[in-house]
């Protein structure tokens, strides 16, 4: 008698399991629609979360039958991209609106994750307020727009005036060549060996930060480039690439930067902003225009003294040749999921999140360079921090990454080359040769240009 009894208890469980899996695929009912919004949030990046909370309130008030589900992902940039891509693989988990890095736009359009926005943008009055260069950030290979920028950024040398002055260096400081950087760094080290004179990121630990806030500032100042936009081919065998690696090697070998072990720590940037700059242990580093967002009120590493102590300088070209400086720009966008069941509403939410009020709040709180012309002329934007003008001017000398679908892997290959050089595993020549071989393997010989 016992066996049939057991069987009877198992059956409902199986039935419940089957029912549970069947339920998840039923579409939401027409009356009560929900929108799923996915974006990045971390302990040092909450500006977007604040904007999204505001946008949710605003949107739900205007659309009473719609529920907005905010689903922030707690992760760094690399992991955020991975988690987002994994969520997009299935219609059940794909978000309706999401935060997307500009350099992933083309690759993710190819993957079929992003909805074409052209027809929606036509009917959106605010679209004309976006500056023309910024609109390009969301354009894919087919010429259509798939994502709307939140803001952009530039990169510069951030230096601690007090530390430089202690070493007898005049401020404001503006190096004209790579050699200027090295001689200043050596002077700082000579006057106080406990100070880190000039840090530049390297290695896979800091991920995309390694190339955006370090390697490309060097490479694009050597008259070389990563990608030939006209020929649509990747450049290999360039002297500039080897020289850029050699410059990093010099910095690390002479202990002008952090130790290689610290450089490979994915959290090294937290020490840069949170400890070394405020404590006067670091003279200078290359970082983004968003730097003040960490130090201003409400930031992750509040530091009241930063406005007086910090200075900003343009990263020089190798020999001071035209145009005299280098910067890199990226930035993030909002996009609508291609699998969204409520595309119309999703775009409406995107438009709410990016209206003038919310864009202004985001640009100010996250020290972004505004992409809406009406925000850029707003007085609260211009006075958000003392560096807005300096970093905005760098747009004149800035470069954008080749946002092709191959790019993320090429970027990794560059990071690997820098890691090999600073850890002493390879010489700059060998590391460059390995990079060339990797690129050829990744994109094929016909998409490579020897120069």
């Amino acid at each position, binding site marked *: 008698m016992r*066996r*049939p009894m*057991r*069987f009877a208890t*198992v059956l409902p*469980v*199986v039935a419940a*399991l089957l029912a549970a899996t069947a339920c998840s695929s039923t579409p939401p009912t027409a009356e009560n629609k929900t929108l799923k919004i996915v974006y990045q949030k971390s302990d040092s990046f909450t500006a977007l979360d604040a904007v999204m909370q505001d946008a949710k309130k605003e949107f739900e008030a205007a659309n009473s039958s719609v529920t907005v589900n905010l689903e922030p992902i707690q992760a760094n940039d*690399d992991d955020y991209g*991975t988690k987002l*891509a*994994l969520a997009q*693989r299935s219609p059940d988990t794909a978000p309706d609106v999401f935060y997307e890095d500009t350099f*992933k736009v083309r*690759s*993710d359009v*190819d*993957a*079929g*994750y992003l909805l074409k926005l052209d027809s929606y943008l036509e009917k959106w009055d605010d679209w004309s307020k976006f500056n023309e260069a910024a609109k390009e950030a969301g354009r894919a290979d087919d010429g259509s727009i798939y994502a709307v920028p939140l803001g952009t950024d530039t990169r510069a040398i951030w230096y601690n005036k007090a530390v430089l002055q202690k070493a007898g260096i005049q401020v404001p400081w503006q190096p004209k060549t790579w050699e200027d950087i090295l001689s200043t760094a050596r002077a700082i080290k000579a006057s106080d060996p406990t100070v880190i004179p000039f840090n530049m990121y390297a*290695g*896979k*630990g800091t991920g995309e930060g390694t190339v955006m806030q370090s390697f490309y500032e060097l490479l694009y100042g050597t008259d070389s480039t990563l990608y030939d936009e006209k020929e649509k081919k990747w450049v290999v065998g360039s002297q500039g690439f080897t020289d850029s690696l050699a410059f990093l090697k010099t910095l690390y070998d002479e202990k002008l930067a952090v*130790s*290689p*072990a610290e450089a*490979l720590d*994915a959290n090294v940037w937290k020490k840069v902003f949170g400890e070394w700059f405020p404590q006067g242990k670091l003279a200078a580093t290359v970082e983004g225009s968003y730097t003040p967002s960490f130090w201003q009120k409400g930031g992750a590493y509040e530091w009241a003294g930063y406005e007086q102590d910090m200075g900003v300088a343009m990263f020089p070209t190798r020999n001071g040749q035209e145009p005299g400086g280098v910067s890199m720009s990226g930035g993030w966008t909002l996009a609508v999921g291609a699998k969204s069941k409520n595309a119309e509403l999703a775009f409406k939410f995107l438009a709410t999140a990016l209206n003038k009020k919310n864009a202004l709040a985001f640009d100010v709180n996250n020290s972004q360079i505004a992409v809406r012309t009406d925000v850029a002329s707003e007085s609260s934007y211009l006075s958000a921090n003392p560096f807005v003008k300096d970093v905005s001017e760098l747009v004149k000398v800035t470069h954008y990454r080749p946002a092709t*679908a*191959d790019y*993320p*892997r090429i970027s*990794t290959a560059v990071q690997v080359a820098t*890691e*090999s050089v600073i*850890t002493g*595993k390879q010489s700059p020549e060998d590391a460059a040769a390995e990079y060339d071989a990797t690129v050829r*393997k990744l994109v094929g010989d016909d998409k490579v240009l020897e120069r």
Partner: protein
Amino acid sequence: MTIRRYLRLLPVVPSVLLLLLFLLAPVVWSFYASFTNAALSGRAARDPQWVGLENYVRMFSDDSFPLAAWLTVVFVAASAVLGQNVLGLLIALLMTRSRRAVSSWVGTVVVAAWVLPEIVAAFAAYAYFNRDGTLNQMLAFFGGQGPDWLYTFPLVAIILANTWRGTAFSMLVYRAALADVPQDVSEAALMDGAQGWQRLAFITLPLIRSSIATNLMLITLQTLAVFTLIWVMTAGGPANASTTLPVLAYQEAFKFGDIGYGTAVASVLIVLGVVFGAVYVRLLREQKP
């Protein structure tokens, strides 16, 4: 009668189905994906193509794969086969001879590392081997100066951490096995004048052979799969010096978005596990005629 026999099998059907669904299906899918160029982004994400053996060919022309395979073998041999196994046996042997209070105290200390969740143990090990960590602070107290362990000797640090974490399991297995060794055999050998090491080598070890093989199989498979410990301590660095196969598979599949290549690496790992398992099963079978 036969119907009743089939009816008796019915209750296991759900568990078999669940096993097939959650255990076998991912393995089969992983093998299948390793023959495609599936990716997280780009055109291959929308429409993965069958590429045959391309991923496997690339694996053997890629420097990082042979290195990762070698590091995996070193890691398993040093931390499981040598570290956990030998240390576990040693502690178990000493415990049989020590006083009860001492042996239960030692047992508690060793088991403490084992019951910690892997992520907690990993952070503890990171805090211990870190440049400003406990180990170097202790060395500094005695006037020494330690290197940056995780950077200079990443694999050594990971091997020590995994040995620390896993020894308890071997110790428990051997404690049970040694308790089953008949006392009179040892005593007879003692009467014949056998030394301590002779009794260990010719009496005790042969008697617990099957426990040794079972233990080796289990800890080898466990160690092959270690990921969290390595990821937290070194993330596979510096310059791939501690990238074992699970770390490489994760990096390729999720950091670089190359699912096809990542699953190819994972497939090799599965095959490696099956080979190890088969060897140990063989060992187990041979001693029971």
